[in-house]
């Protein structure tokens, strides 16, 4: 079938216009769906109890900004603690992980294969298998520390401190990083590193001045992902923390589980607890996307 000349000039434009329109419609619809919980959160966070009971979904006036003051007071300790845990653990994991990956990639030594398999095999062990014994191990370590502390007169603890979250996270977070970064370093031209080595730079210097800058986007992406994962961790903190040391996930569940919930301040708390991640990603968005493009979790 041949199209008539008139159609042949106008049709592609219309189709293209239509196609673009459909694309936009799909994207906007998806955005709306994504936005529903966010919308609810924002709207309810500005209501008092009466407004919430009578019109939960639509905005109502007057707006109760004092909910944010209440919510802020409630979630701030949770946020601060979680931030400490997520950043420290990620920092430790990044430093140790990138160093290991760098060594595995750039040095030849006996036992390298053994050591690397030792790490890599852990990718196959599910976290869920470890949960119970890890808990038992941590309580055992805690008792040990307390006994030592008593002898030395220092209040040493492990349970109910940030370290009980940081240490296992720093250990477990490395596995994936080592794997990805090693692959990345392997794919880089060896000459880069050789040149530094010929210049007489030591292991740490090469790592610090060549490897790290080279892998900055990837490390950034991995770090952000790690932080987000730790930010959302629920089970492990639930087991090892007491209420006065709650993290964000636990704290929010805690507020929601009260016998009398005031939804306004609760939702305000939700909104506030989303801000740190918003800031984090806002600042590192470009790095993050570049890292993804560079194959951070491409494998």
């Amino acid at each position: 079938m041949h199209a008539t000349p008139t159609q042949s000039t106008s049709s592609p434009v219309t189709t293209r216009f239509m196609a673009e329109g459909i694309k936009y419609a799909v994207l906007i619809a998806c955005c709306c769906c994504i936005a529903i919980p966010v919308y609810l959160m924002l709207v309810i966070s500005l209501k008092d109890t009466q407004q919430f009971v009578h019109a939960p979904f639509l905005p109502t006036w007057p707006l109760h900004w004092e909910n944010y003051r209440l919510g802020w007071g409630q979630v701030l300790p949770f946020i601060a603690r979680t931030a400490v845990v997520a950043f420290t653990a990620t920092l430790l994991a990044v430093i140790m992980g990138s160093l290991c990956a760098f060594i595995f990639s750039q040095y030849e030594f006996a036992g390298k294969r053994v050591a690397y398999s030792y790490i890599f095999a852990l990718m196959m062990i599910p976290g869920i298998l470890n949960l119970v014994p890890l808990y038992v191990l941590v309580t055992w370590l805690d008792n040990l520390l307390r006994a030592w502390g008593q002898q030395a007169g220092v209040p040493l603890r492990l349970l109910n401190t940030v370290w009980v979250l940081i240490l296992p996270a720093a250990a477990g977070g490395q596995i994936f990083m080592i794997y990805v970064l090693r692959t990345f370093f392997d794919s880089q031209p060896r000459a880069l590193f050789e040149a530094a080595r010929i210049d007489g730079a030591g292991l740490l210097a090469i790592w610090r001045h060549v490897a790290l800058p080279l892998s900055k986007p990837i490390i950034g992406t991995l770090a952000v992902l790690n932080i987000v994962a730790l930010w959302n961790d629920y089970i492990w903190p639930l087991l090892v923390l007491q209420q006065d040391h709650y993290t964000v996930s636990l704290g929010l569940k805690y507020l929601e589980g009260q016998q009398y919930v005031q939804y306004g301040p609760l939702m305000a708390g939700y909104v506030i607890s989303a801000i740190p991640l918003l800031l984090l990603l806002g600042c590192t968005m470009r790095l993050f996307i570049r890292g993804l493009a560079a194959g951070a979790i491409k494998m």
Partner: protein
Amino acid sequence: MRRWLEGLFCLGAVALVALVWWRTAPREAVYAQLTPAQAELQRGIDLLQGDPNAPLDVGGAQQHFKRIEQMPAAGEAERQWAALLAGWAHWAASPPDFAAARRALDKFLRQWPESPLALQAHFLLGLAQRYDERQGNAQEAVRQFEQVVVHESEGALAAYARLQLATLEREKLKRPEVAARWYGEVARHAGGPYQPEERKGFLFLAARMLQQAGRKPDAIATYRELLAWEHDANGVWTERVVSRLDELGVKLDPWSEAQAEIKPPAMTQHRFTPDKPLTLQVSFWIMSKQGMGDAIREICRRYHARNPLVTVQIVDLPYGGYTDWLQSRILGRDLPDVLQMDNQSAVRYGANQHRLLDLTDALAQSNPYTGQTWGESFWPQFIQEARDPVSRRNYDISWASENNAFYYNKDAFRKAGIVRRDAQGQPLLDERGKPVPAEPETWADLLAAYEKLRQAGYYGEVCEFFPDPAPLIWQTPYITKQIYHGLIPRLDVLTPDDFPDPFELAQAILTGRLDLREPKVAELWRLQYAKSEFWVPGCTSMDLHEAFDAFARGKAATFYWVSTEVPDFERMCNFELGVFPFPSLRGTKFYDGEYTESPALTAYEFALPRVNEDKGTAAAALDFVQYFTSPEAQQLLIAKGNILSPLRGMPASPRLEPFLRRMNRRGTHRNVFNPYEINIIKEPYWAESRAKVLDEINSLLGNIPNFEFYHRATGGDQQAYAQWRETRFNTFLDNLQTHFKWACQRLITEYSEDRRHALRRDQRRWLAALRAATPGMATTFAVPDATLQGTTPEQLWRIVLDDWDVITTCENMLPTLERDRRAMPPALSAQRLRMVARSLQVGLALAAAGLLIGLAWSGVARSMLREARLWVWLAPTLLLLGLFSYYPALSAIYHAFFRWNGAEVAEFIGWDNFRALLADGVLWHGFRLALVFMAANVLKFLPTVAIAVVLFHLASKRAQYMFRVAFVLPLLIPWMVVMLMWKYIYRMDGGLLNTLLIDMGWLHLPVNWLGQTHTVVPSLLMIGFPFISTIGVLILLAGLQAIPETVFEAATLDGCGPLRRFWTLEMPLIAGQLKLNLVLITIQTIQEFALPLVLTRGGPNHASMLPGLWMYFNAFSYGKMGYAAAIGVVMFIVILGFTMLHLRLIRVHRD
């Protein structure tokens, strides 16, 4: 240099093996220090007592004891011990060899009739006769126990012997008169091992026996003696005695027997002074209740002011999740010093797991803040209800109670015309000139009021159903008290104490003596079912917040709730709030008589964890609890928290007037039981069956119970509706009966099995205590047992006897076949087990040594030295991973073969966990569910692909960037917020989804999305709609952008349409990534369990119980760590399969 290092590695390897070999070898060094006879004895004792986690090695021990007999040099003490232990070992073995035990003990007694151990031997011999179901001789047993009483008439052992005699005479020899004598002796023997309340029970039994024997005057005298023992009319025995006396022709008003007026004691000047200042942590879940929180803070402040050396720190926890928190704390032994804890948990952790301090003795002593006996300052029912029904010990103590009533909306009642009228039919007016609502007095009034309310546009009642249908459950005692009184004599069969205890109920249900379908028993649910017609539709899925919202919004006119929340309710309702008590059942079918007494909900209790003893805070914690239950503190709780005090003579808060109207603490039918509650607290089977029962209640009372909705949904008429209701009710009863039968069966099997394991430990502790307590009896080589802490053998006898009683009671209820299976010896004999364990340990050491040597040989050792700078940087990672990843994984695999509670109990049970796992329906359902989740999650990846492609083809790069940012949004909101928002969207009443669907006319009735078995899984799967994974979009987009522009241009020139272009160009280019992502998703899905944990806790009825969650519950809720580890291992194997696939894909992708 190199040789030197390798040598060092090899040396280390050899040392390791040697060390393990030596550590696991018998304790030859210890034996060498003893005389040959002592060494033989110690060898035997070590085989019996050495490892509490291994079965007794009776055969091995007997050989050593025999050798002592033949030793000319053996001393008298060793011979006696050897002979006694020979008997004991047969008795304590599993299964016991009673005949052999009897022979050995007979021999012992013939040889050393005057031995200091003779008393124990007589007692053991008596037990070996009594518990031997096949060849035991009751007469013989009686003779032995009488010997004990003759030898020592005052001690604890004599008291036990008397009770044994009484039971034997009653059960086996059927001589009620003799039994009465023995019961009387135990009862009247003050200062013995039995508590006053228990002795009252024995006296009651004595009177019952006399009555049975036809000795009327003696029986009456004994009953009267018991009445005199009861200090007031609230004693639990008063009513039973009065009704028994009634049978004997003695008419009594129970209340004339009571003391006149009870006044609370005055406060003393007591001060608690510890050695050094200390901080006491007290955990509460109640602090968010306004008045209660204030009162508690004030009490803690005053306590500190009185006792300046003790600072009280309140640990404020939410109500939801408190139990989870407590469970993990208890496992970690990291607990506050005082816990608010309900008595079911207290029993579970107290008696069954020895994690809590036993308060029974403290209750018998005085409370220093009042100078009065602590226990006697309580209404007896509070002590009674907080007691473990089996061991009869108190592991917790009540500090406040509350009553329930119907809160109601006075305005709604007025609008519906339910008002009180004078003789002329004019409404009575209150002081503000408004009509006085007519509060329903009887059940008929209540239903009539609901009917009028319905016509006025109100629903009658709203019930909170999640996590429990609490109001409904709280109403049941009122109903059962009024209609089940007459059932008691029929069910009270094991011990004739006029109270069907949990075992008796279980037996009645198992043998069919009690059928939950018989009309009288089913009446409870029939009444509730009739009422449910007026309920807010779908309230069976509401939690407290939703239910309360429905009441506060004026949708429902009544709400059954607790008295302590009057102020909170008043604050939140903008209508006039009224309260009326639970109506009388006068006029209903099976009404047994009026009842006017509080249900004594022991709502708030304290328990003290055992770790306090190690922390040195036990005394302070007890002191704090005693202050909390002193009049001063109670006064505060009454004034601010609106509680009913568990202390005698304390006045009630004036605000509770409506709750108290029918509760003058005087009345009949206090002796109540509820056939629907079998309170042997044994997780998880009781929890499991309880969940099933709740689900039945849900399905009966939920889903369109009223005609209007029935008609709208099906178009049926009134007759069809009535028929439909009846059918549903009968199905409900059938299911209930099935569930209860199943529960009783599982309960008894599990309970006796657990007790068997406990018995093994308790018997060993008894042996250790006996050795420590017998002077001059070879104590030189007794190894002190740290867990005993001054416990006497007499105290342990009681525990052992309790264990035995429970085991025999349970097993007599089980069919013979089952019993025989249980009596089978453990899979591995003690010797074999020891050998296996040792070879395993040595084998592991050898493997480790082999690894070391291998490393040395392959040059790794050398490399470590030469490349030390590399290994130094690798070391932290390797060590951390070893500690936090490898060790736990290996430990999980190891413990999958153990009965393990995460702490001291770690008994090797071979493949038993895996066998149990094969038969575990919940787990297999979980795996099927995981498959569904996996498939769904794979499908849920499609939108991500679509969006990435659409985004890639957007003409405007600017728009592309904007949308890309928009899709990052879901990543930013904390996961928990997303979960809780979805929970809110799925709310039944007023949730976004239901509101939308009903407004659009797509739904007639609100749907309980997360609360029904058939909607919960789809609802969970829809969470996160439209399932756009931020990371996924970004990765795929990056992948697409990496495709050279020219490829697309060429394709467009070739006339490719968008679809064809997608399949021929884009799809192959991103296929590798897709595959990887999908495998990753499947691996993550199998492990998923936080989602159902947060939203549904695996419910309803295990419908959303993913395998990971089931493992979590087994480990942290049920204390079955070993079983949980076995589930973990199975999941590991499944995941391993997927990971292998994953790795293959990576390789393919790389190539």
